[in-house]
């Protein structure tokens, strides 16, 4: 990555120095040209914070964390963004983490992310999150772009599929969608397909943006103008395609390997979470279900719409045991429609339970990514949240569209 302006990330944490991951946090920060800082406070600030904030906790490090948050909001610290991190499985820390996040979000302009870590958390796991955080802090002018101009391309090199689009004057004029096998070859094939559909050659493309897991590799090879993580790009792409670039929105992308839930304001990500611990909450679960039902993944949604998830007993969210529950149901005589509906509901319920609790869901709710085309998925989300769910056109190309849109900001550079 090219060297960029240093971003100061204020770390509010409990337990990171005793979990062996402080170095991982600092390494990930250095990779995105950021520096971790700790807001200065006094011992009196720590003693006073419970009464001032109104949340009493037993752990002194959590009090320290609250006092540091207070110092940030009071403008006593020179920082650009905030990282809140606490131990995974600590209930007290989870309460403080969520309330601190909300408090900072409502009382300051700092972009903020939170994360619960284990000793297995690596710099790689944190990289995408910190990349999104620093992008929001340093590239507000780029993110303010609302129109695609000229002829640009976007490639989304995902874990399961690679998508490419060609855009011209605010319209998608070519698309390519291939399974990800070898990252470079798949990206080339997807881009070629998109160019063929658009009737153009490579030299006509004025700017290229890339995103997804393979973004660094293909970005280097294709000499991309923009190499950007999925949180920023998908937020931008979602509100652009949904025609809702101003105001609040929530974007949910259930991907092949991980899920993103992003609270967006004027197209810029605010609070967001990335799930990635359990495959049972991913598009992979739906893929396996469709294989077991003997239908193509594109047919699973239509089946699910006709089914009733309540007719199938799901004993586990796990990708192994959950599939076993579905198989047992089929053996007991359940119809494929009900099983398809139960699979969609299971995935959505996990996203709801594990991720949406940390993101304030604000309407409109925009679902994107390939899984949003499985009709049972947005329906299950609507059933759970009792709000309308928007699936914009070209939602499966969301990352590529967002990348092409943002890349048009580089045309004259």
């Amino acid at each position, binding site marked *: 990555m090219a060297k960029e302006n240093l971003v100061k990330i204020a770390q509010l944490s*409990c*337990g*990171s*120095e*005793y*979990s*062996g*991951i*402080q*170095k*991982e946090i*600092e390494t990930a920060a250095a990779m995105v040209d950021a520096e971790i800082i700790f807001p200065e406070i006094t*011992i009196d600030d*720590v*003693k006073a914070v419970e009464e001032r904030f109104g949340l009493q*906790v*037993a*752990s*002194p*490090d959590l*009090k*320290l964390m609250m006092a540091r948050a207070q110092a940030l909001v009071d403008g006593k610290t020179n920082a650009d963004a905030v990282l809140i991190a606490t*131990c*995974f*499985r*600590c209930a*007290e*820390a989870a309460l403080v983490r969520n309330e601190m996040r909300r408090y900072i979000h409502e009382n300051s302009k700092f972009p903020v992310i939170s994360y619960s*870590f*284990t*000793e*297995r958390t690596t710099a790689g796991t944190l990289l995408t999150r910190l990349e999104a955080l620093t992008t929001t802090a340093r590239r507000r002018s780029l993110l303010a772009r609302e129109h695609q101009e000229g002829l640009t391309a976007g490639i989304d090199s995902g874990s399961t599929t690679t998508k490419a689009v060609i855009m011209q004057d605010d319209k998608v004029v070519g698309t390519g969608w291939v399974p990800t096998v070898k990252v470079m070859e798949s990206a080339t094939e997807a881009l070629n397909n998109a160019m063929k559909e658009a009737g153009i050659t490579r030299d006509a493309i004025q700017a290229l943006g890339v995103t997804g897991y393979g973004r660094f590799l293909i970005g280097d090879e294709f000499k991309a103008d923009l190499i950007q993580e999925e949180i920023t790009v998908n937020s931008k792409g979602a509100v652009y395609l949904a025609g809702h670039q101003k105001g609040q929105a929530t974007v949910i992308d259930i991907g092949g390997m991980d899920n993103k839930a992003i609270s967006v304001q004027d197209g810029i990500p605010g609070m967001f979470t990335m799930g990635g611990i359990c495959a049972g909450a991913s598009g992979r679960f739906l893929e396996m279900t469709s294989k077991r039902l003997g239908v193509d993944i594109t047919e699973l949604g239509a089946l699910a719409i006709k089914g009733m998830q309540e007719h199938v007993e799901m004993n586990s969210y796990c990708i192994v045991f959950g599939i076993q529950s579905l198989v047992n149901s089929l053996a007991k005589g359940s119809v494929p429609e009900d099983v398809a509906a139960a699979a969609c509901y299971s995935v959505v319920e996990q996203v709801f339970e594990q991720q949406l609790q940390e993101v304030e869901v604000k309407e409109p709710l925009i679902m994107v990514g390939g899984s949003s085309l499985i009709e049972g998925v947005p329906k299950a989300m609507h059933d759970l949240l009792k709000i309308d769910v928007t699936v914009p056109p070209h939602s499966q190309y969301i990352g590529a569209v967002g990348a092409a849109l943002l890349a048009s900001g580089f045309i004259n550079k």
Partner: protein
Amino acid sequence: MVKVFIYPSNSLILSDLVDRFGHEPLAMMQEIGKKIRTAGLDSPPINITPEDPKLGLKYAAVEVPAGVRGRMSLLGPLLEEAEAGIIVREPDISFGCMGCARTNELINFLVRAKKVPLLEMDYPKTEDEAKAFVHKIREFLDGLSGAQSGKGDE
């Protein structure tokens, strides 16, 4: 000389009192000190490696947060060595602070479960209480000389 586990485990005052009255304090500082002086490791707070919380599995199960197990990887071996203990209940942050309430609960329990001579007392809030506090600690430490039975309490 008796090895005395102290709580809060990073209290400089308690550590100093144990040392002054002729015993060996078992304190967090000495463990952190070893890590700092070990060649090849970074400076604090990066000196705890991702392997340390795994060592803490000896004292707390995997569903216990990593920060607790990381602390236990330092404190657990000290607890095993302890021949006596002093626990100060509800200390002021400036007296010594372990940071994590769950770790505090676990180590206090483990010291009590060890059935070694133990002095438990509240943190003093007035000057008179402070004098009595120091006196009680001295009395306890004086009585330790070789004795391995009996439990002191406030």
